[in-house]
């Protein structure tokens, strides 16, 4: 859908995921989209270098998000939101609904 515009299907998925879910780390994205970790890290690096993404470290994990200071942030988010609404519901549930609420230690899955 937007992959030609963004240059690759994986880049489109990463951007849609970060727009919808807020933050993610590279292994989370690689597992979620069954992509290679190297490929995901490569896309994240390029997007961060362009100022589109920003990252911060939590412990040893680097978390990525859409850069709120990116000068086309409003326009990019509008594009991604419109693109996201066109995704099939099954794909949304399968790929874009990670658990974010807390889980008590020792509680069975």
């Amino acid at each position, binding site marked *: 859908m937007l992959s030609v515009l963004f240059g690759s299907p994986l880049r489109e998925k990463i951007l849609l995921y970060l727009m919808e879910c807020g933050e993610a780390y590279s292994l989370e994205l690689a597992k979620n989209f069954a992509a290679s970790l190297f490929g995901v890290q490569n896309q994240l690096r390029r997007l961060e270098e362009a100022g589109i993404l920003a990252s911060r470290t939590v412990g040893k994990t680097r978390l990525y998000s859409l850069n*709120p*200071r990116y000068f086309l942030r409003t326009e990019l988010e509008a594009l991604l939101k419109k693109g996201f609404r066109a995704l099939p519901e099954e794909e949304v549930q399968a790929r874009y609904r990670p658990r974010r609420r807390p889980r008590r230690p020792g509680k069975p899955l």
Partner: protein
Amino acid sequence: MRRMGLEELAQHTYQGLKARGIEVTLSGGACVSLYTKNAYQSSDLDFIRGLAVPIGEVAKAMEELGFTREGRRFLHPRSDFHVAFPPPPLTVGEEPPGEAREYPVVSPGGRRPVRMISPTDCVKDRLCGFFYWNDRQSLDQAVLVALARKVDLAEIAAWAGRERMRDRHAEFEAALAEKRGAPRGKKAATESKPGRELPSHKERAAGARPI
């Protein structure tokens, strides 16, 4: 050989790139250091290049100026500070800044100009860090610049409104008022009058106030 401080490294980088036809503008924390005479000490210099200038061209020029590249940073053997080139364009929040210009900077190497964002845009730039990252250091730096330099507070308030950050801007106003000694909750008297940022004709004739 003398070590280069922040001011001299800014001059060396800016003048060297300019001589090679590359126009860059200093932004970020280094501007805070220069505008506040190091009340806040930045460790790096963020220069923004034009959209049409590829980073490879800048990197080649930086090598000629004696820098070595380490990832995204450029290191000089005579300085503990480093230089970086964040992606263009130059913006403050969602807007382009006002006109950047050359400000005279004084260092042990002499008085030479460096093109920088204005003090008003420097405050906006720091407030972006506070607005979007909740970074209190950025708020402190915005206050330091507003105290040290003439800034257009009315323009900053209007800009914060356009960024949909009026609440956060109120925190900046309160912090500034507190530093100026005004009681909390009341605006400092000077805040109703926007500060004069640009030099007068007399100052222009004599050269703007050096940093």
